[in-house]
């Protein structure tokens, strides 16, 4: 296993799960491609031109034949990156909420070999134009996670995270839909992976709020997570 301090940018793979993101994917990929040679877009059975637009950039494009959910798309991207000998894997949302400038800070603790997983936290970092209802819902999710997953984090459903090769090989996402974020935290605790939170910036706008999870979906996600835990 290579010394994690020697990992260069070419061993960092960015996974971008995308579903019907034709309006935003090009803009999201531009800063990623200029900084990192290995970007993987997993088109999760989009009905629009997401895959075709992504293919205009120097990225790997993988297509799910049917819409399977963000969790499923992430695991597909992770499996692919591991096969390409990725040493660090970063998950990054396609809707432009995340800031590519945060990636190097996010992977730094893994590069130094201090932790196996880093989790982006908007509550340690910065949020731009976040509605107060979303703030309340996310705080509720944090308490839900502390109660059921027994892991103390400040932000739970943030899709911006990084993991070492070892962590990516250990974690297996089986929650196809949005409950995967809680499942990853569950597995970090279960497999005793070392983790830390890193401040990141999340930018909200009308389009991302319309496309993203509604506040009422929180109950459904919680139910999916709890039921999914019972089925092995």
């Amino acid at each position, binding site marked *: 296993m290579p010394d994690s301090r020697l990992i260069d940018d070419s061993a960092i793979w960015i996974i971008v799960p995308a579903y019907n993101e034709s309006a935003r994917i090009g803009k999201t990929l531009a800063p990623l491609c200029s900084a990192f040679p290995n970007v993987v877009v*997993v088109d999760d059975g989009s009905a629009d031109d997401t895959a075709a637009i992504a*293919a*205009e950039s120097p990225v790997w494009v993988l297509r*799910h034949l*049917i819409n*399977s959910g963000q969790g499923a798309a992430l695991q597909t991207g992770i499996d692919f990156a591991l096969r390409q000998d990725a040493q660090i894997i970063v998950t990054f949302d396609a809707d432009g909420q995340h800031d590519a400038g945060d990636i190097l800070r996010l992977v730094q603790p893994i590069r130094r070999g201090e932790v196996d997983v880093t989790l982006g936290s908007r509550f340690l970092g910065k949020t731009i134009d976040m509605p107060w209802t979303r703030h309340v819902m996310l705080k509720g999710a944090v308490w839900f996670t502390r109660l059921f997953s027994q892991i103390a984090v400040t932000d739970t459903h943030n899709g911006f995270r990084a993991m070492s090769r070892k962590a990516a090989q250990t974690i297996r996402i*089986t929650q196809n839909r949005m409950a995967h974020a809680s499942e990853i935290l569950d597995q970090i605790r279960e497999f005793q992976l070392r983790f830390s939170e890193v401040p990141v910036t999340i930018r909200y706008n009308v389009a991302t709020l319309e496309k993203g999870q509604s506040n009422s979906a929180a109950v459904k996600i919680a139910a999916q997570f709890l039921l*999914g835990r019972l089925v092995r």
Partner: protein
Amino acid sequence: MTPFQWLAITFIIGAACYELVNIRQQRAVRMVGLFRGVIWFAAALAILFPNQIGRLASFVGIGRGADVILYSFVLIFMATTFYFYSRYLRLQRQITDLVRYLAIQEASRGAEEQTLEEG
């Protein structure tokens, strides 16, 4: 016996025989088949001896025999719903594995490779 009891018992005997044949031919999972057999047997007892259900109800503190059956149905319904949900989740995971396999097999590189080929 009342006409209803004759009809119901005939149906239950038929269903129990079907379960037995399935179990012998190993078409059904043995434990599931046995579970269904127990359900049919309990139903036959309840129809043949309705007064005993009333006594059972009094014994467990519910009161009416019909309520025992109703509560049992609610519990069985919940267990069955969870059973089918877990079957659905496992099937969904298998489909996802297939979708993932195809996606990885057919991975393609975007603009950069096209440029190289063109060059």
